[in-house]
């Protein structure tokens, strides 16, 4: 942990986005995570994504649970709104916030412990409701904050730092979320921002619940030999299957590419995701084929990454629950609080 603050200095030719802001305007406080933690690299990818999407920092809500990963919203977008919930309960709070104001960008940052153990039920329901948010799992295979116990994503046979071998089968968040009905399910790696940044951009623009499982090595407790979540192991078995380029609405698009190799899908605001097949035979729009493929290759120990499943037909929380189109904060007082008489009338109906 560094003792000093990051110097208040900007590169004299630092690029500015359409809002006239530099990347540094999207930073948060100085990270207190271990030096080299994958989570910090994901933070940098989040900063890069919001900056390049020209999102005003104060139009963002960042939420998390408990864990090293869940600490990271403190390290980006210091001008955004934020809630650090209790362990595993971030999705409930996200649902409430989302219902109250649909105009903001919602990003939740969680860990494999926070999401796949204590918060697994919460995650499933956020997904089922198709909450309009980006949900990032910073997956390191351990409970980092509590000193490195195996988490539910630890692979069979992987070794802990002190030598214990994991004998319980892992939950793979990508397979689980596709199976549970996810509408945008992706996997990335903290060490590959070229892949991760467009995934985050697309996830933020997706109308519905976008989940990105990001492999994020824990340098302190899970970066040794015989760990399947180390930098070295991940690099060795890492296989991008589908590359997603994010294309903003104003950008001139459609570079030449071979037929059948890529498909472009339009998002609700006129931007595009261009899906490029890096591996033969993978179809990110077919739920059951995607699951079969993933199960097959995961069994071989391959780490398949990219935008693994995508669809836009499932309605999101707002349309199902018919939430207010106007943020509650913008409703006039009379509508927001119709008064005791109105309440009494409603209650009358249930007598």
């Amino acid at each position, binding site marked *: 942990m560094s003792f000093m603050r990051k*110097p208040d*200095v*900007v590169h*004299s030719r630092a690029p500015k986005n359409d809002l006239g802001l530099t990347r540094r305007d999207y930073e948060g406080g100085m990270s207190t995570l271990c030096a*080299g933690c*994958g989570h910090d*690299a994901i933070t940098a990818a989040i900063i890069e994504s919001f900056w390049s999407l020209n999102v005003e920092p104060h139009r963002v809500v960042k939420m998390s649970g408990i864990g090293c990963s869940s600490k990271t919203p403190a390290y980006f977008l210091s001008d955004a709104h934020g809630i650090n919930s209790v362990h595993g309960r971030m999705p409930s709070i996200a649902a409430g916030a989302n219902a109250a104001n649909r105009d903001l960008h919602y990003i939740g940052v969680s860990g494999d412990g926070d999401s796949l153990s204590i918060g697994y039920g919460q995650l499933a329901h956020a997904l089922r409701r198709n909450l309009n948010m980006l949900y990032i799992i910073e997956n390191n295979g351990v409970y980092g904050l509590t000193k490195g116990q195996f988490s539910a994503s630890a692979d069979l046979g992987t070794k802990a730092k002190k030598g214990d071998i994991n004998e319980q089968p892992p939950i793979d968040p990508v397979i689980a979320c596709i199976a549970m009905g996810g509408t945008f399910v992706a996997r990335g790696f903290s060490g590959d921002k070229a892949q991760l940044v467009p995934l985050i951009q697309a996830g933020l623009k997706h109308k519905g619940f976008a989940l990105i499982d990001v492999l994020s090595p824990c340098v302190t407790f899970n*970066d040794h030999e015989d760990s399947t979540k180390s*930098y070295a192991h991940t690099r060795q078995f890492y296989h991008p299957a589908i590359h997603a380029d994010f294309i903003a609405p104003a950008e001139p698009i459609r570079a030449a590419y071979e037929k059948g190799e890529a498909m472009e899908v339009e998002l609700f605001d006129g931007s595009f995701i261009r899906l490029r097949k890096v591996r033969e035979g993978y179809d990110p729009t077919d739920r059951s084929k995607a699951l079969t493929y993933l199960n097959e290759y995961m069994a071989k120990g391959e780490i398949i990454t990219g935008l693994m499943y995508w669809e836009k037909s499932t309605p999101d929380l707002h349309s199902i629950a018919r939430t207010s189109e106007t943020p509650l904060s913008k409703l006039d007082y009379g509508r927001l609080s119709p008064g005791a008489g109105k309440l009494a009338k409603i209650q009358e109906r249930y007598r």
Partner: protein
Amino acid sequence: MEPTDTKNPDYFHKVVDCQWACPAHTDVPQYIRMIAQGRFGDAYMVNRESNVFPGILGRVCDRPCEPACRRGRVDDKPVAICRLKRVAADFREDISHRLPTAPEEKNGKRVACIGAGCASLTVANDLMPLGYEVTIFERFDKAGGLMRTNIPSFRLPENVLDEEMNAIVDMGVDLRLNHEVTSMKALLDEGYDAVFVGTGAPRGKELNLPGRHDTDRIHIGIDWLESVAFKHVDQIGERVLIIGVGNTAMDCCRTSLRLGANDVKVMARKPRDFFKASEWELEDAEEENVEIVINHFPKAFVVEDGQLKGMTFDLMEYDIEDGRIVDSHVVKEVFVPCDDVVLAIGQENAFPWIERDIGIEFNDWDMPEVDRTTFQCSRPGVFFGGDSAWGPENIIWAVAHGHEAAVSIHRHCMGEDINERLPRGMNLQSTKMGLHEWSFSNAFDGSERRLVPQVGLQERFKNIDIEVELGFTMEQFTVEVERCLNCDIQTVFAAPKCIECDACIDVCPTHCLTITHNGEEADLRTRLSAPAENLEQQLFVSEPLIHTGRVMVKDEDQCVHCGLCAERCPTAAWDMQKSLVHVPKAEDQPTPADVSPERKAG
């Protein structure tokens, strides 16, 4: 690109922008840190080793280091490097016991230096401790050269000059004052082992316009300043015109104000962007209410009945494109009344005393042919340095020449090839003190540059010897030293240790670092985290990294040496290391055993 060879001393040296820009390569950040630690004597000695005259240069150096300072590139203004040098001099404890001394036992070699300016004094400074007998011939009755005769005492007090000159002369230099060398041939006949010509550029340029010689109220700037310095002149008319707008002009106008003038105009031919004077010298003059008049081209001196009435000028208009004058026209003629005119339009070299048949070749401009590295002319054993070599420069260049000429003289006298000089060296030492602790303060102070306090505008004119600048106070310099970015604390990279976690890249406040696929420099520069458009600044490219074969690239341009890359690296692939540049001096050159003093004594 090929992996960067950081063993080449120039690579890290160039990163220390100030030190690289300093002709004498003063270790600026090192002395600034010493001041921060209250080690003023040490700071003075670090300076003295390179620039010989810290007290003088801390006041009047032309400071090429400051425009080069990284702080000016990254944000705000450069560190007040020059005035911090003065702090070292002002606050130092007694350092007399640390000054060089000459051995009793001489090495039997005699060197003659002509002119007692800073160039010759530097030669003496370097050769006396090695046992040389150095004789300096000076035409005036005081040593110091232009530092004494032309730089006014309100900028450079006499006692400061005397003290630093005496530190050299007192080693036992044979200083022959009032001794003008009028024949090089005769001097050479005296059998010196080497001769150094440090006679400066002593001739002020003329302006031959109608009326020039019809009055005695038109003065040549450098001669006039010299007369003032020697107290031969102590007054001037109320209305003075200074012709020219270089640094000499600035001294002439400010001196005039102290000799009774109250309406002083500096007449410039061109617009301000084309002025030769340093911005700070212009500011100092304007602060004293000197009027700087642009676009006036001198035409004639108006003299009636032997009395100077004024001057006529062509008022000019210029067409400027891309900072260059492409065309000019005269708008009208104007008359400007005055009582005196001072010509400050440049200096020239003149060597009437060097015979042209003694093996010293002169070129088409009547300047001696001098080698840029060895400072030797076409006659072996005769060396030139300072303003005498290639025309007027400044003190710090003259000092740098002096050091290099001393190396040549030493090698020449020892029978060694003067071209086989020792290369520069570089030493690197880690500054790591703990996990996230360094032996330098890596969090720099974001404050603005401090301003040096000055004597009030009324007070300063009471006496020409009142030094205008007061020097930094303790409160000021303690802030100013922390503005320095410690560019000599280098980011040193060990490729085999890197696990490509991106931590350093993400934390860097100025986006200096990138891990990417290698390529040609022009291409790489377009693929970095921040635009690497400053082509004067180097790119560091590592060996291929072990996981992916990509390379770590660092654009040195805007690194603030905060050390965060090294703090955030889990494997200590980055380290912060102090670079110490070694510029070999005369004392470092190998001495053949048969002529060394020890050997002779034994």
